[in-house]
C-alpha cells in the first residue's frame, strides 16, 4: 500500500489518501451513528413495548388479585361462619361480595357431588350435572390452587347468557361443626377482560392474546388472531416468555409474553414497531446523501488543492527538463505557493550561477588554449633560426654576399609574418608568402638541391588559416621527403577548395612511406604527447585546438613516387 505512493505524482498522493481517509472516517462515523441510533430506537421501542406489556399485565394481575381476594374473603368467611354455625348469614355475604365487584356474575359454593350449598344469586342452578363441567374437573385436579377456565357461556345457572370465566378452588366449609370439602365457584364477566385489554393502544395491527398452560387461545383482541387461525399464538408459544422482535402479516412488531400472576395463563402483547423501519430507511437515505455529497466536495476540494500545489511544481519540472537538454537561457516565473516561489528563485539563481561558471570555464579553456597555442608556435622559431643563421654564417665565409643578402631579406620577411603583430590567424596569402620565404632560405641552405612550386588557386588566397600551418609540412618534406645528396628533389605546394573545405597540400617526390609507417605516424601525431614527428604533431594539435574536429591531417603515399601531407581545414573568409 505504501509502495503505491512511492511513484505517484503529488496530486495522486494528495488525492488518494485524502479520499481514503474521508471515506474511512465518513463510513465509521455514519455507520456508528446509524447503528447506535438504530440500537437506541430499537431499544426505546423495545422498552416502551415492554412497559406497555408490563402495564397490561399489572392491570390484569390487579384484576385477578381482586377476584382472588374476593374468593379468599369468601373462603375465609365460609370457614368463619361455618365454625360459628352461622351459615345462614353466608348467602348475604356472598351476595354482597358479588355486588361490590360488579364484574362478578356469581359466587357459588358447591359440594364435591355438584350440589349447591350457598349462592350469591337468586337464579336456579342448572339441572345438568355440575361435576362434568370442565371447571369442576379443574378444581378437583389440584385443590391447592385457583383455576381459571376459558371464557364460556355461564353454565352453573339455568337461563344465563353471560359470557364468563369461571374461577374455582377447593375450599372447606363447616356444617354443624363438621368440616366438608367443597368448591368455590366465582363466575366473572368476560366483558371486563375485554375492557381491560382494549384500553391500551398497541398501534396499527397491534393486539394482545391470552393463552393457557396448554398454549390454547383464551382470548385475543386482534384481527390477525382468531380461534383456530392465530399466527401470533404460534409466536407466543415459541417465545414462552420474554420479548422478541417479530413479523406479523408483514408488519414488524415487538412481542412480549409474560405470566399472569396466580394463574396458569400467559398474556402476549404485540406492539406495532413499523415506525422503526421507517426511521431506519429515512436515516439510511439521509446518510447516503450526506456521504455522497461529502465525497463530491472532498474530491473537488482535494483535487483543486493538489492541482494548485502540483502545477507550479510541474512547470518547474518542465523547465528543469529543458535545462537537462541544455537550454540555459530561460528564466522561470512561477506564481503559487510560497515554497514553490522560493524554490523557483533558488533555481533561477542556481541556473544563473551555472551559467556564470560555465562562461568562466569556457573563458578559462580559451585562455588555456591560447597559451598552449602560443607555446606551440614559439617552439618553431629557435630551431629554424639556429639552422638559418648557421647557413648565413656559411655563406658569408664563402663570400657569397648576394646570397647572404637574399637570405637575410627572406629571413626578415619570414619573421615578420611569423610574428604577424601577435596574430595567430592570418590570410592564406600571407602563409604562402611565409612558406615561399622559408623555401627560399632553405633552398640557399641546401645549395639548390631541390626545387619547389606553388599551385594555388587565386580564390582561396583570402581565406584564413592558422599561422605556421604550412611551413612545418614543408620542413618535413625537405628533411624527410627528398634526398638532398643525390637527387634534385621537388616539392609541390597546393592550395585549393574542395568539399567546402580548404585543402593545403605539400607533396614531395621522395621515397614514400610504407602503409605501416603511415599508421605509426598517425599514432605519433594524433595520440602521443612526445616522440618523433614533432613538427607535424605541432601543426595537428594547433589545428585541433583552433578548429576542433572540423580539421584534419592526412598522409598519402606511394612508395618511390611521392608523399602528400594534406591539411583539411574549414573555410573561413577574412572579413
Amino acid at each position, binding site marked *: 500500500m505504501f509502495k503505491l505512493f512511492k511513484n505517484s505524482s503529488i496530486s495522486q498522493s494528495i488525492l488518494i489518501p485524502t479520499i481514503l481517509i474521508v471515506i474511512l472516517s465518513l463510513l465509521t462515523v455514519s455507520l456508528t451513528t446509524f447503528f447506535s441510533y438504530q440500537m437506541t430506537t430499537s431499544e426505546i421501542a423495545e422498552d416502551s413495548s415492554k412497559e406497555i406489556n408490563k402495564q397490561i399485565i399489572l392491570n390484569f394481575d390487579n384484576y385477578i388479585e381482586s377476584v382472588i381476594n374476593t374468593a379468599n374473603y369468601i373462603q*375465609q368467611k365460609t370457614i368463619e361462619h361455618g365454625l360459628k354455625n352461622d351459615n345462614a348469614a353466608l348467602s348475604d355475604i356472598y351476595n354482597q361480595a358479588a355486588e361490590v365487584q360488579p364484574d362478578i356474575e356469581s359466587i357459588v359454593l358447591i359440594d364435591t357431588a355438584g350440589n349447591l350449598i350457598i349462592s350469591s344469586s337468586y337464579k336456579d342452578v342448572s339441572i345438568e350435572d355440575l361435576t362434568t363441567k370442565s371447571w369442576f374437573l379443574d378444581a378437583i385436579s389440584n385443590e391447592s*390452587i385457583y383455576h381459571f377456565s376459558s371464557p364460556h357461556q355461564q353454565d352453573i345457572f339455568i337461563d344465563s347468557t353471560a359470557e364468563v370465566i369461571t374461577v374455582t378452588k377447593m375450599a372447606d366449609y363447616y356444617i354443624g361443626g363438621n368440616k366438608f370439602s367443597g368448591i368455590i365457584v366465582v363466575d366473572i364477566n368476560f366483558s371486563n377482560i375485554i375492557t381491560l385489554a382494549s384500553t391500551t393502544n398497541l398501534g396499527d395491527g397491534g393486539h394482545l392474546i391470552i393463552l393457557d398452560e396448554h398454549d390454547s387461545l383464551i382470548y385475543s383482541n386482534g384481527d390477525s388472531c382468531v380461534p383456530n387461525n392465530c399466527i401470533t399464538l404460534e409466536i407466543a408459544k415459541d417465545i414462552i*416468555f420474554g420479548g422478541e422482535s417479530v413479523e406479523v402479516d408483514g408488519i414488524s412488531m415487538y412481542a412480549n409474553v*409474560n405470566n399472569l*400472576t396466580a394463574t396458569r395463563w400467559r398474556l402476549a402483547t404485540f406492539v406495532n414497531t413499523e415506525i422503526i423501519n421507517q426511521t431506519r430507511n429515512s436515516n439510511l437515505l439521509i446518510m447516503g446523501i450526506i456521504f455522497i455529497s461529502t465525497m463530491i466536495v472532498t474530491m473537488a476540494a482535494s483535487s483543486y488543492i493538489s492541482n494548485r500545489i502540483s502545477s507550479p511544481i510541474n512547470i518547474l519540472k518542465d523547465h528543469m527538463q529543458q535545462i537537462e537538454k541544455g537550454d540555459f537561457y530561460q528564466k522561470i516565473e512561477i506564481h503559487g505557493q510560497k515554497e514553490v516561489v522560493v524554490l523557483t528563485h533558488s533555481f533561477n539563481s542556481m541556473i544563473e550561477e551555472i551559467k556564470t561558471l560555465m562562461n568562466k570555464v569556457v573563458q578559462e579553456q580559451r585562455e588555456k588554449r591560447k597559451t598552449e597555442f602560443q607555446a606551440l608556435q614559439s617552439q618553431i622559431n629557435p630551431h629554424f633560426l639556429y639552422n638559418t643563421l648557421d647557413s648565413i654564417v656559411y655563406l658569408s665565409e664563402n663570400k657569397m654576399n648576394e646570397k647572404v643578402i637574399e637570405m637575410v631579406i627572406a629571413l626578415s620577411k619570414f619573421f615578420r609574418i611569423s610574428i604577424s603583430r601577435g596574430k595567430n590567424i592570418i590570410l592564406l596569402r600571407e602563409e604562402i608568402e611565409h612558406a615561399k620565404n622559408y623555401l627560399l632560405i632553405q633552398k640557399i641552405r641546401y645549395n639548390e638541391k631541390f626545387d619547389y612550386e606553388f599551385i594555388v588557386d587565386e580564390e582561396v588566397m583570402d581565406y584564413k588559416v592558422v599561422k605556421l600551418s604550412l611551413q612545418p609540412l614543408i620542413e618535413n618534406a625537405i628533411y624527410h621527403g627528398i634526398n638532398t645528396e643525390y637527387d634534385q628533389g621537388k616539392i609541390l605546394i597546393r592550395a585549393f577548395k574542395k568539399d567546402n573545405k580548404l585543402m593545403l597540400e605539400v607533396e614531395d617526390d621522395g621515397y614514400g612511406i610504407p602503409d605501416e609507417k603511415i599508421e605509426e605516424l598517425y599514432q605519433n601525431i594524433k595520440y602521443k604527447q612526445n616522440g618523433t614527428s614533432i613538427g607535424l604533431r605541432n601543426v595537428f594539435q594547433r589545428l585541433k585546438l583552433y578548429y576542433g574536429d572540423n580539421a584534419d591531417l592526412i598522409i598519402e603515399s606511394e612508395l618511390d613516387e611521392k608523399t602528400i601531407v594534406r591539411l583539411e581545414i574549414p573555410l573561413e573568409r577574412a572579413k
Partner: protein
Amino acid sequence: MKKIVIVIFLFLVILTLGACEESYDKIPLILYNEIDPYILEFEGHILNEAEGKLEIEVFDSQNSQLLQNEIIEEVLEKNPSIMIINPVDRLGAYTIIEKIKEYDIPIIFINREPLEEDMLLWDQLYYIGAPAENSAAIQSEMIIDLFGAPGNLSELDKNDDGIIQLVILKGEQGHQDAEIRTEVVIEKLELYGYELEIISIEICDWEKVIAYNRMNSLLTTLDKEIELVISNNDGMAIGAIDAMIEHELFVDVNEDGVIDSETDIWIPVLGIDGIEEAFEYIELGYLYGTVINDSQRMSEILIELVEALLNGTGLDELSFDLIDGKYVWVDYQRYEKD
C-alpha cells in the same frame, strides 16, 4: 507503519472475539424476594456454603414474576451452566421450565415448589425443599404438648371452655406452603380430637408488617380471648407478637425483661422457619417455638447438587436421597425454649 496497522487490526479482532467469547462461570441464584428474612438467611447460607467452591451471582426478583422473567432472560444470554431459581409464582414456573429447557440448562428450584405436573415437563429439574405438611405436623405436636389431652386442656385454655380459640396467620393465598401448613395443622389437631375455634385466618403474605397490621385491627375489634396463634412463618408471628404486646396480651409482670411462662401474661405463638429474629423472641419468651426450616442443610445439599451436576459425577453418590430423581426433602426441626 504497516506493522502498526496490523497490530491495531489484530487488537481489534481480539477485542471483538474476547467480547463474544466471554464465558460466564457464575451460578445464578434468582430469589423471589430479598425482603423475606427467611430468604435473606437462606441466601446467606448458600453463599457461605459456596465459598471457595462456586461463584454465585444473586438476583432479586422483588416479588414480581415480571421482573423475574426479565432476570431469567438476561441470565440466559450469559448461558450459565446451571440456574437456581426460587420462583415468584409457582403457577408460572412451567413457563420458566419451558424457556430454560430450550437452552438445555438444568434448573434447581428452591423454596417454592412448582406444580407436580410442571416438574414432569423435563428431566433436568430439581427441587430442594421441606415437605410443607411436616412443618405443620411439628407445629401440631408442640400444640399438643402445650395444651395437653383434648378432654382435659391445660391452663392455656384460659376461658376453660375446652375449646382452643385460635388465630391462624396464613402466608400468601395460593402459596402451596401456606395452604398446606394451614390445612395440616388444623387437620392434625382435629384428628387428635381437639375442639378448635378458629377466630380468624389472617392472610398476611408472609410479611411481618402485614401481620402486625392485621393482628392490630383484629385485636381492636375482637371481643374474645385468643388462646393460640399459629403462624405459617416466623416473620408473621413476630409481626403479630409486636401488635399483641401493644394490646397487652404479653405483659412482663415482674419486669425482668423476659416473659416467664409461670408468672407473666402470655399467649403461645408458633412460627415456622427459625429465622434469627425468631430465636431472639423465643429467648425473650414472646415466641413459644418455631419449626426450623433447615436452610443450612438445604444450602449444603444445594451446593453439593450443583457441584455434582457441574462435574457430571453422577447423582448416585450424593449424601442425600434424590426422590424420583428430582426431589430432595429436608425435614423441619422443632425448636422451643428449653
